[in-house]
C-alpha cells in the first residue's frame, strides 16, 4: 500500500508567524492569549483571545493581492510558502498535475463579511468592495494556494466546524494513499477574531472570560485563536526518490459522526474515531506515546474526551501523555487541527511534548497525564491528533515517527 509522509510544514498563529517560533513557544509553554485589540471591544463581554499580533499583510503581499485575500487566506498563503520551501518541492509544470490542495475552515472569510456588513448596515454605505465574493468564499484560500504553486490536481475546502483541518488532512492522506495524487498541500485556517465573529461565539456562553485551562478543575471555557497551518503531504517513494527530509508518516485516519446533538460531544462517537484511527494505522493503543487533545477547556469537551481515551486505551490510558495546546494558541476553530499538527511533529521529530499550560488542579473526570504546565522530553513512536467538532463530527489522525 502507498504510504504518506509529511515533508514540509508552515504556520501562522498567536505564538509565532513561523514553524520554528511556534515550536519554541510550545516547548517553553508560552501563552499567546491576551487582551483583544479590536474596534468596539468595550461592547464585547469576551475580551481575550489569541490574536496574531503585529500581522503585517503588506510585508507578505502586493496591494493587488491583498485586495483579493481575506485574513484567513493571508495566513494560509504565508504558512503554505513556508511548508513548500521546507519541502524543497518544485511543483511548476507537469509536477503540478499530480498535486492538489485540501484545506479546512469553519467560517472562511468572516472578516470580509463583517467589514462589508458594517459598511452597508452600520455606516449606511451603498456599495462594498468589488472583490467581496472572491475574498469571502470558504474555498478562496485553497484556490490561492493552488495558484501560488501551480497545483492542478484536486483542490477543495472542507468545512466541519472545529474538525475542519483534521478532516482536510485526513482526506489529503486518503487521496495520496489511494493514488489520486502524489503531493497534497493540506491543513487549514481560521480568522474569526473580528467583532461579529466573537459576538456570535459570546452568545453560546461557552467562552472563558479569563483564560483557557484545559483539563484543569477550574476550567471555565474556551478562548478563541486565529491562524493557519499548512503541510506538504507526499507519497513515501516520491519523497524518498528526491531525498526529501521526512518529518513524520501519516499512518492512519478515521472520521465518525455522533448523530446526536448539535453542540454536546459524545463519548461513543469520539471513541469510535480514536479506535478507527488506530486500526487504520495498524497501531495498538500501547504504541501511542502522545495524544494532541481537542482539549477546548470547556466543561463538556474535556470530560468527554478523557472518557473516550480511557474507553479505547484501557490500561494504556495511564501511560499515554495527552496535552491540549489550545491554552497557548487558543482555539483556532476550523484551523485548529492544523496548528496542533505542529505539536505532533515536534513530539515525533524532536521528542518534545508540548504541555497543557494553565493547569492548576486535577479534575477527577480528566485524571490522565495531561503534561501539566511544562514540556517534557520523551521519545515517542506514534501520536494521535483529536478533533471533535460541534455537530458531532469527529476526525482523528494517527502519525508515526519515521
Amino acid at each position, binding site marked *: 500500500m502507498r504510504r504518506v509522509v509529511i515533508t514540509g510544514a508552515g504556520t501562522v498563529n498567536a505564538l509565532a508567524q513561523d514553524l520554528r517560533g511556534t515550536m519554541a513557544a510550545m516547548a517553553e509553554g508560552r501563552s499567546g492569549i491576551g487582551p483583544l485589540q479590536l474596534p468596539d471591544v468595550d461592547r464585547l463581554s469576551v475580551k481575550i483571545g489569541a490574536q496574531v499580533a503585529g500581522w503585517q499583510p503588506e510585508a507578505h503581499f502586493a496591494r493587488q493581492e491583498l485586495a483579493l485575500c481575506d485574513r484567513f487566506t493571508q495566513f494560509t498563503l504565508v504558512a503554505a510558502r513556508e511548508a513548500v520551501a521546507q519541502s524543497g518541492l518544485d511543483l511548476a509544470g507537469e509536477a503540478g498535475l499530480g498535486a492538489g490542495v485540501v484545506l479546512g475552515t469553519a467560517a472562511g472569510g468572516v472578516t470580509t463579511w463583517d467589514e462589508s456588513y458594517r459598511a452597508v448596515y452600520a455606516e449606511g454605505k451603498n456599495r462594498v468592495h468589488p472583490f467581496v465574493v472572491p475574498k469571502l468564499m470558504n474555498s478562496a484560500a485553497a484556490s490561492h494556494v493552488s495558484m501560488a504553486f501551480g497545483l492542478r490536481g484536486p483542490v477543495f475546502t472542507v468545512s466541519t466546524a472545529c474538525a475542519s483541518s483534521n478532516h482536510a488532512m485526513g482526506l489529503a492522506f486518503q487521496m495520496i494513499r489511494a493514488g489520486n495524487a502524489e503531493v497534497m498541500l493540506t491543513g487549514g485556517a481560521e480568522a474569526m477574531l473580528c467583532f461579529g465573529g466573537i459576538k456570535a461565539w459570546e452568545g453560546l*456562553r461557552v467562552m472563558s472570560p479569563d483564560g483557557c485551562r484545559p483539563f484543569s478543575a477550574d476550567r471555565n*471555557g474556551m478562548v478563541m485563536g486565529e491562524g493557519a497551518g499548512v503541510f506538504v503531504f507526499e507519497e513515501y517513494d516520491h519523497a524518498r526518490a528526491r531525498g526529501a527530509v521526512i518529518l513524520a508518516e501519516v499512518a492512519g485516519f478515521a472520521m465518525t459522526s455522533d448523530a446526536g446533538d448539535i453542540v454536546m460531544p459524545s463519548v461513543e462517537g469520539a471513541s469510535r474515531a480514536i479506535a478507527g484511527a488506530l486500526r487504520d494505522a495498524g497501531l495498538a493503543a500501547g504504541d501511542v506515546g502522545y495524544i494532541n487533545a481537542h482539549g477546548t477547556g470547556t*466543561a463538556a469537551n474535556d470530560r468527554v474526551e478523557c472518557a473516550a481515551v480511557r474507553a479505547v486505551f484501557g490500561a494504556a490510558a495511564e501511560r499515554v501523555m495527552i496535552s491540549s495546546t489550545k491554552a497557548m494558541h487558543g482555539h483556532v476553530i476550523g484551523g485548529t487541527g492544523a496548528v496542533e499538527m505542529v505539536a505532533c511533529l515536534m513530539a515525533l521529530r524532536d521528542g518534545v511534548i508540548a504541555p497543557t499550560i494553565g493547569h492548576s488542579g486535577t479534575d477527577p473526570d480528566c485524571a490522565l497525564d495531561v503534561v501539566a504546565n511544562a514540556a517534557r522530553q520523551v521519545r515517542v513512536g506514534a501520536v494521535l491528533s483529536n478533533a471533535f467538532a460541534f455537530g458531532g463530527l469527529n476526525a482523528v489522525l494517527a502519525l508515526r515517527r519515521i
Partner: protein
Amino acid sequence: MRDRIIAIIAEQAVLDVADVTPESRLAELGIDSLGLVEAIFAIEEAFDISVPFNANDPAAGGFDLTSVGSVIAAVEGLVAQKAA
C-alpha cells in the same frame, strides 16, 4: 415580570404557561443546556439586562437557575440593580 418570565420558560419547555409555576425546577421542565442558553437570551432581551451565565460553570455567576422562582428573583435583582 413574573408572568413574562414564566412565558419565556414555558415556551422553551414547550408547555402551557399554566403548567409552569415558581416551584417548577428547570431540569424537571425538560429544559436542556441549549434551551437554558436560549431562555437566558430571551430574558436579557425582554428586560434589557445582562445575565452573568457561563455554561461551563452555571453556578459561578451567582444567577440561580434551579427553579422558575429562583430565576424570577434573580431577574428582579438585576432589574433593580439597573434602575439603581
